[in-house]
């Protein structure tokens, strides 16, 4: 697919930086980053792109391979609530679905919890008389005259976009479709998001929440993407840009614009895909990616080369980042855990005299005490500095001097309370934060039936490489990968991602009753949707690779297990084989197998993709083995160690350095503990191995 000198360009717009990678088909690459331009995100996008193209001496017309893009534009607008007037249309009698939620108090012991204000308020919610039942029968059809009256109301309220979520539409979308057709007759420019289209799955609150968010985001997403396409074209690049989705696939800008809710986690998803890329490259069956930044740490499990995907996540957690305090979204997304433990996490002593780290964070303003911006609380980065892992004079390549004295005195104040020395306190923080991350990773893996013991770890993010080795030891891992281009890794992730779309359809049937009549229309519909979407991204129907799965459960249970199917179920679906696969997966997850319990299928899933395109960047290593540029004393619990310090760029293939060792690059520092050896690999990765 790639010619010898084609170029691919990737831009990842994050909260702080806009990162860009230009990749030539032979692996040569250029990277850069600029500050994100929040007033107009495309300004930063093109600013950064201009920089790398200039470096390479190329123009946009030379980007003949893909242009891939991950962006926080949707997440930001949802959090800032700066969307245009958006309506919600539901079955009459159920208008408060977003207010009532699932009635759950997500923290039983905290009487002060808060729920987010619905993204679409009661003033812009309308009920229509209609009824569909779970058995797909339509009890009452949507009436013409009702829709005319509704359209008048929508016009009067300047509504530009509506979410339609009618009861049981996951089972039969006829009423939703009829409502849409009637509405657009009255209002041709209205953007309509149907719940049976956006998230066709059972449970009205989750579906309504997802559809409402989609409708709310659409009036921002569509012009943003349209403008991206137009500005690219004006610069000489005409093919449709590809947009990163939360599920780890990329799709064309047109499809992305219809489902902006699927773009929400696009940046983090791109990061996870790099992990998937390296897992495949190194032949690891499983891998744990570990990304630690300023306020949080994220981990993602890669199994058989692919990141785990979940069907539900939350956006904009309003109350202390607590699960349950955000708005739920049920679209496939990379299954990641995020915990409040980053470089800016604040350490304190609780009322039991225990050392706690996070989830409160000093962020980047005022930041850790050592930033010298007025922060006085001891943070994880302060501990790293006090321990000698970080160099006060060489943070961000020396662009930002750190204040060691400020870090030590913040540490001392906490140490006095705990009865510990400055170094003991710092090494306590280092240990506790490492243990939190390991515990979260263990829980995440155990929950998903994955054995975490011995999984290789991929470390990135500003603080990831500092802490990864300690965390890896807690997870009994014996291999850690430190990839190159750590600071633009998410952008790179969008380039190593196949164009892919995940689809699902609900159809509750006992496994024993599944026939071709059940399956064929659902799979055909998903296939058609998938083909159309991929065609827009330039993928021919015969190049599509499809994977199939079914969400199954024992009859009477409520949560399902997604079970991979061996092939297209339209060609020879074998219920006995499916049952065996389900029971094996179930046992792996829950440790039990329930004999003679009937099984039912809830959802059918299909994933269509263009397959791996083989893009890969090369990173040059030094020609000759480098020598340490210095030495630092690092204080660990076991005592003080003399540790050699290398520049990453000075390391050469064949070099093998026993730990403890520190390796510095501009954006991060790799800290390898005693008992490990660090050596560069051909692709520019550094690999630590336990001996």
């Amino acid at each position, binding site marked *: 697919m790639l010619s010898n000198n084609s170029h691919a360009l990737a831009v990842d717009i994050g909260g702080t930086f806009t990162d860009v990678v230009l990749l030539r088909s032979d692996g040569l690459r250029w990277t850069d980053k600029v500050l994100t331009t929040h007033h107009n995100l495309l300004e930063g996008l093109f600013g950064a792109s201009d920089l790398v193209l200039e470096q390479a001496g190329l123009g946009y017309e030379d980007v003949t391979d893909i242009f891939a893009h991950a962006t926080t534009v949707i997440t930001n607008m949802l959090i800032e609530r700066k969307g245009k007037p958006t309506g919600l249309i539901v079955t009459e009698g159920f208008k408060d679905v977003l207010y009532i939620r699932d*009635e759950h108090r997500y923290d039983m012991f905290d009487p002060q919890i808060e729920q987010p204000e619905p993204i679409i308020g009661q003033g812009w919610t309308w009920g229509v008389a209609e009824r569909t039942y779970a058995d797909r029968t339509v009890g009452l059809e949507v009436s013409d005259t009702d829709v005319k009256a509704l359209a008048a109301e929508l016009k009067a309220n300047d509504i530009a976009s509506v979410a339609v979520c009618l009861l049981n539409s996951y089972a039969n979308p006829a009423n939703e479709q009829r409502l849409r057709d009637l509405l657009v007759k009255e209002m041709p420019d209205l953007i309509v998001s149907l719940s049976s289209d956006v998230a066709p799955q059972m449970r009205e609150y989750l579906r309504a929440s997802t559809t409402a968010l989609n409708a709310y985001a659409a009036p921002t997403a569509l012009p943003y993407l349209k403008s991206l396409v137009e500005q690219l074209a004006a610069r000489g690049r005409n093919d449709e840009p590809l947009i990163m989705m939360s599920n780890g696939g990329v799709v064309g800008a047109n499809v992305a614009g219809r489902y902006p809710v699927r773009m929400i986690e696009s940046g983090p998803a791109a990061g996870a895909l790099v992990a998937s890329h390296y897992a495949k490259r190194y032949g690891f069956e499983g891998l744990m990616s570990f990304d630690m930044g300023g306020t949080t740490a994220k981990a993602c499990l890669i199994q058989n080369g692919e990141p785990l995907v979940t069907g539900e996540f939350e956006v904009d957690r309003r109350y202390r980042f607590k699960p349950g305090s955000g708005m739920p979204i049920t679209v496939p997304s990379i299954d990641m855990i995020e915990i409040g433990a980053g470089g800016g996490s604040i350490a304190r002593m*609780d009322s039991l005299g225990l050392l706690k780290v996070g989830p409160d964070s000093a962020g980047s303003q005022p930041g850790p005490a050592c930033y010298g911006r007025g922060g006085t609380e001891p943070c994880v980065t302060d501990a790293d500095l006090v321990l000698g892992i970080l160099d006060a004079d060489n943070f961000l390549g020396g662009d930002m001097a750190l204040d060691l004295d400020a870090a030590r005195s913040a540490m001392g104040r906490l140490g006095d309370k705990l009865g*510990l020395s400055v170094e003991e306190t710092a090494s306590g923080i280092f240990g*506790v934060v490492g*243990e939190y991350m390991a515990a979260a990773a263990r829980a995440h893996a155990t929950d998903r039936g994955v054995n975490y013991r011995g999984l290789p770890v991929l470390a990135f993010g500003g603080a990831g490489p500092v802490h990864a080795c300690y965390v890896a030891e*807690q997870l009994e891992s014996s291999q850690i990968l430190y990839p190159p281009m750590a600071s633009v890794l998410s952008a790179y992730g969008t380039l190593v991602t196949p164009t892919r779309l995940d689809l699902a359809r609900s159809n509750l049937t006992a496994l024993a009753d599944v026939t071709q009549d059940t399956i064929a229309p659902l799979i055909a519909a998903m296939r058609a949707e998938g083909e159309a979407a991929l065609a827009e991204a330039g993928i021919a129907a015969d190049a599509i690779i499809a994977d199939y799965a079914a969400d199954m459960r024992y009859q009477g249970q409520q949560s399902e297990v997604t079970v991979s199917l061996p092939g297209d179920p339209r060609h020879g679906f074998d219920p006995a084989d499916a049952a065996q696969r389900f029971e094996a997966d179930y046992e792996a997850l829950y440790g039990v197998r329930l004999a003679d319990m009937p099984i039912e299928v809830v959802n059918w899933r299909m994933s269509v993709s263009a397959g791996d395109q083989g893009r890969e960047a090369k990173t040059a290593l030094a020609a000759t083995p480098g020598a340490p540029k210095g030495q630092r004393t690092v204080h660990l619990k076991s005592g003080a160690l003399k540790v050699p310090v290398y520049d990453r760029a000075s390391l050469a293939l064949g070099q093998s350095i026993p730990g403890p060792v520190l390796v510095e690059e501009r954006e991060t520092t790799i800290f390898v503990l005693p008992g490990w050896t660090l050596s560069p690999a051909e692709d520019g990765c550094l690999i630590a191995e336990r001996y």
Partner: protein
Amino acid sequence: MDGVDLELRWSNMISIVSEQARALKRVAFSPIVREAGDLATALFDADARMVAQAITGTPGHINSLGAAAKNLLEYIPPEDLEEGDVLITNDPWMSAGHFFDITVLTPIFRKGKLIAYCGSTIHHTDIGGYGVGAGARDIHEEGLWIPVLKLYEKGEPNKTLHAIIGRNTRTPDAIFGDLSAQVASGKVASERLNALCDRYDMDDIALVSEEIISRSAKATREAIKALPGGTYHGETTFDVPGGEVITLKTAVTIDADAGDITIDFEGSSGPSKSGINVVMAYTQAYATFAIRSLLNPDLPNNYGSLSPIVVKAPEQCIVNAQYPVPCNARHVVGMYVPFPILNALSEILPERSVAEGSGAVWTIQIQGKDHAGKPFTSSMFNYSGGMGARATKPGLSATCYPTGVSAVAIEVLEAAMPIAFTCKELLRGTGGKGQSVGGDGQRIGFKMRSGHDWLLNAIPSRLTLPAKGLQGGDPGATGAFLINGESTLPAAKKAMAPDDEVLMHTPGGGGYGPPAP
């Protein structure tokens, strides 16, 4: 042990029981567990003291599980336990107050030595007898009573007990599925605790447990010592199914020198004839919950932090059920237990108090026939009224307090039985007015679609007496339970005609502070 070493070990223990709880919730057949999170898991030391508990679950379960280990071990002492044994009971007085809640306790061994126990309580689908509701006349009518027994012996299932459970319950498959999940989760916790001991080179958890428990007790006493000493009085009055009016009175005595709190329910209503009597363990669970939510929220919940709080009630009292009174629907009264305590202490802790709310969740169960004429028994499902207002925040609408279980989605219920909901919307303005307003109740309507007669088993409350406001706030609106538009006060299972329609108005929460004029 310093604050770092202790934190490293203890945070691990909490994550072990929390994972256990999440796994149970996902695997459960019992809808009230999987949808509503009605479960608890905890870790106990070798002396049967609760040292860590999962951060999920309902207060009634968590705090009553806390006392369960000791109770079980009085019947089967530790010296009679071997590796692979698993204990079980649903004795209301020993664990969570009604037969539906089955507690499973797994002794954890390390190199042949008993070092800990892990326990779980979950609300099972059925336990035979009367079924959901308050209509049984004594406890024996309420279902199968499982005394403290070994469910597994040295890894082998107790076949006699399994056969008895199988014959005396309506949904044995679901119960066995959930019991095996409880047993499996105990096994996982045991492995995880051993792995933790390996990582930190510990023979047992005695030292960690002792440190945590003594530090928790000390910190709790310190928090209590910071309060003004004295005895404070509070009460709440509410109506329960059938129209019976219940009063709960508390005298809360703060001993600021010793750092103790005593809560005495003297003067509260006597035992009820219907199944809403509350065993002491459950009363204690909700009473300590109230205290905990008023004290430093930083404090963990364990044997140490619970020990300075003493709960008392006379023997002839609805919150100290004595054999053989029925107690199947004990949550109807139990969920009101925090209100008199919060009312009493609002005098000294106004900023942390919460006004009375709708109280107990309304629970419903339906028995009928589907379109094909096949009989079904629905799972129990529940809906909330409004929560009381907080000092600076409104009460949450359609959200219960002190519990806060989720409602099952309408689409899930409609897919599971021939029911059709006609509405589910907020009743705006039903929360009490005040500086902060109480949470609103909601309107929920449903009927059956199958054309057969059916049985309705509903447990509403606060149909005549509203949630009081606090600090001058207005009361919330009372609830209503309507069948074909007519108000009723259902107490027991009610026979329904095919086309009967039910409409429920759940109550609003009380307001906080005087409303603006």
